[in-house]
């Protein structure tokens, strides 16, 4: 059928609300985003399907990622009148026991992450909580109340982990496409733009430009207007866009459709990274389904509005996340940015007015339209409204995607939600904003996270990557790592970026190799300052940030490398060596067994010794030792 009205949406959704919340048999939701699959979810899914499901009449379903990546594979089991339980680390070998246990009433409590209190999204306040009247399980915390989820508010990720991403009907059942049909039938384009403006939504891709203003400017310019979704999520360590595309692709399509109505465009493009094959696959399915229901195509809902979406895959170029480079790449050209004397909203793709937002930005739009601008603007800080998804990764106990209101402190994210640094190591810094961002030291942990506060300390929000670093991370090496990344990714057309980065890399490599000299730090600062002023595009002007912030906050580490020829973190191979601390060594022999060079020897239960001549500093012993007996000198 073709959806013509809000009533049609309700009719189709009705049956699926039941399937989502009150299934007729036990239902097993397995988190199958790429991270889940890599952790073993697909194998568990196959096992359950082939060996158990058909015999026992249960529903085995896939969902996207609910965010707590550390605990994957995540499997949720529920059934009519029973609690909804989220199990963690459920691999192939555990899944049948978990499900049969659940059915028999033995809940395998040691595998439980939590039980759900309320599975509805924040758009579904019109239906009662499906778990009303269900007796919760004794002694098991509510999922929404465990530290990882407690401070989260899911707007952009409202459906991730709750619905089957390959089912448009389940998306309908969670109020999907309602905002679009409302906007299409009952709102003026100018009113839609006003709502987005009033919500204070700013671009979630990095720049933080006010979305409503962008839409208004694009709508003002005449010509064949285009809507582009930037899904070229290139910041290493940031994967919220992948997760949204893999978990809830329709929210992005709906956001683009609403932008199409508001701006007056009939053609959309999604430029997605080639490294995200599953996201591409789910997007293709989603677009076909939307076309099937007449939500994409010609004369949508009989209004005369037409909109089509094409997918274009990137080919591995970080710079294509920059809007003008992305548009060049969409045209089949080399992805080089151009100077933005004329903005892309006026002349972008094919020299036409083009509105470009990223995945997370579009995913927010339907929720804003349904709940209202005031609701959205009620969250966050004065100039950064709403929520933001962060990917909390690196040296952190609870790796995962967290969506929190803007303005929450770094400390809250790292320690309460993230559970702090593992293995009792010492926190050193958190890196935000990817290769364009900076490293923020411990003393700024109380900083409220929003666009402006992060810039004040020399970093940026970027797309929301937060990489936690501990005592084993060398900050000079981190700076060298980012510059090395950027040397590869610089498009090479402007001098400051191309040559500046190359020179910085040479200096940083020298410092890491123990050949640093006095004046190197000042030279790095000078080159960095020059690039900030004169590089052509955003990538170039922000490229020195990782170097400049590490110099600003961790100058002592640079000095140790340059003057004392020491790498205190034990990363720069030429500047340290491993030694076995005879006081701490128990002689367990686990390091000796693993050493690929056979450089460690000793008698059982007696302190071992390391032969420096054979050691290649691969670090296997350092990781293997449970007694902190391998020391960095």
């Amino acid at each position, binding site marked *: 059928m073709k959806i013509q009205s809000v009533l049609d949406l309700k009719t189709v959704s009705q049956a699926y609300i039941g399937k989502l919340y009150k299934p007729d048999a036990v239902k097993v939701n397995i988190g199958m985003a790429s*991270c889940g699959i890599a*952790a073993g979810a697909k194998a568990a899914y196959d096992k359950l399907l082939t060996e158990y499901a058909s015999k026992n009449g249960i529903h085995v379903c896939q969902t996207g990622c609910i965010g707590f990546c550390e605990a994957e594979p995540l499997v949720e089991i529920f059934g009519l009148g029973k609690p909804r339980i989220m199990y963690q680390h459920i691999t192939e070998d555990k899944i049948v026991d978990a499900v049969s246990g659940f059915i028999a009433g033995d809940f395998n409590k040691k595998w439980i992450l939590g039980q759900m209190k309320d599975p509805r999204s924040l758009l579904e306040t019109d239906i009662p909580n499906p778990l009303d009247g269900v007796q919760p399980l004794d002694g098991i915390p509510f999922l929404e109340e465990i530290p990882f989820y407690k401070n989260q508010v899911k707007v952009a990720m409202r459906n991730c982990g709750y619905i089957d991403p390959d089912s448009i009907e389940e998306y309908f059942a969670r109020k999907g496409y309602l905002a679009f049909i409302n906007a299409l039938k009952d709102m003026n384009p100018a009113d839609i733009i006003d709502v987005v403006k009033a919500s204070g939504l700013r671009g979630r891709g990095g720049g933080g430009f006010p979305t409503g203003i962008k839409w208004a400017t694009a709508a003002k310019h005449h010509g064949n207007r285009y809507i582009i979704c930037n899904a070229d999520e290139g910041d290493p360590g940031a994967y919220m866009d992948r997760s949204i595309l893999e978990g809830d692709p329709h929210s992005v399509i709906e956001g683009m459709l609403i932008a199409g109505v508001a701006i007056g465009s009939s053609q959309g493009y999604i430029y997605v990274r080639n490294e995200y094959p599953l996201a591409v696959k789910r997007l293709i399915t989603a677009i076909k389904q939307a076309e099937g229901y007449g939500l994409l195509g010609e004369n949508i809902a009989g209004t005369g509005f037409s909109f089509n979406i094409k997918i274009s895959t990137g080919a591995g170029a970080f710079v294509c996340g920059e809007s003008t480079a992305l548009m060049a790449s969409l045209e089949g050209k*080399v992805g080089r940015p151009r100077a933005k004397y004329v903005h892309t909203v006026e002349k972008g793709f094919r020299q036409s007015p083009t509105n470009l937002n990223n995945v997370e930005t579009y995913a927010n739009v339907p929720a804003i339209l349904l709940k209202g601008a005031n609701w959205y603007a009620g969250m966050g800080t004065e100039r950064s409204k709403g929520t933001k998804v962060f990917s909390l990764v690196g040296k952190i106990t609870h790796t995962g995607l967290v969506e929190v209101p803007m303005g929450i402190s770094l400390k809250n994210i790292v320690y309460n939600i993230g559970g702090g640094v593992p293995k009792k190591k010492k926190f050193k810094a958190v890196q935000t904003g990817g290769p364009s961002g900076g490293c923020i030291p411990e003393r700024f942990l109380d900083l409220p996270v929003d666009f402006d506060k992060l810039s004040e300390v020399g970093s940026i929000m970027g797309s929301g990557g937060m*990489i936690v670093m501990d005592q084993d991370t060398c900050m000079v090496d981190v700076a060298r*790592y980012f510059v090395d990344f950027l040397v590869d990714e610089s498009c090479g057309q402007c001098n400051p970026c191309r040559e500046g980065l190359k020179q910085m890399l040479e200096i940083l490599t020298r410092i890491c190799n123990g050949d640093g000299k006095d004046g190197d730090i000042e030279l790095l600062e000078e080159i960095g300052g020059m690039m900030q002023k004169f590089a052509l595009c955003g990538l170039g002007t922000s490229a020195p940030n990782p170097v400049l912030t590490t110099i600003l906050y961790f100058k002592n580490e640079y000095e140790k490398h340059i003057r004392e020829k020491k790498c205190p973190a034990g990363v720069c191979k030429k500047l340290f060596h491993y030694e076995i601390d005879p006081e701490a060594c128990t002689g367990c022999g686990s390091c000796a067994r693993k050493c690929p060079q056979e450089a460690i020897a000793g008698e059982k239960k007696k302190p071992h010794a390391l032969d420096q001549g054979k050691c290649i500093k*691969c670090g296997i012993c350092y990781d293997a030792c449970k007694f902190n007996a391998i020391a960095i000198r």
Partner: protein
Amino acid sequence: MSEAMEPGKARTDEIDFRELDRIIEDDFNNDKENLIMILQAIQRHFNYLPRPALEYLAVKIGIPASQIYGVATFYSTFSLQARGRHIISVCTGTACHVRGGERVHERVEELLSISDNQTTADKRFTLESVRCIGCCSLGPVVKINEDTHGRISSDEIQKILDQYV
């Protein structure tokens, strides 16, 4: 070494031009705006971008071969050299880096005696590095073909490589 075995050179008579036509015409409408996706499809078919295929493509969609070369060398996905049976992509994203991804990378190089973008003599493996595949919770991550291996330490690599013959 015969000409066909030389990396980067495929003999013209080995190129399946009908398949090329199918990709360029049927899948991508002879449209030069689709160049990047056409190249991806050619690479999926041949495992790399053979020169005769690119020369054919240039005539077919009407853009200079130099421009196609420019695009093929700008984007890191593309390889002008024949690649091995198994593609090892070591994730060099930041999360993997701080969790020891560099050491994993070095260990692979050491075990196979090749460095980035090189292929082993027996054509078994090609080593590449990739900028973050978004599986940061599993870092350090190595992807071999379509399989993602997570939380690996350098001493486990040999065992993983042994699974691919």
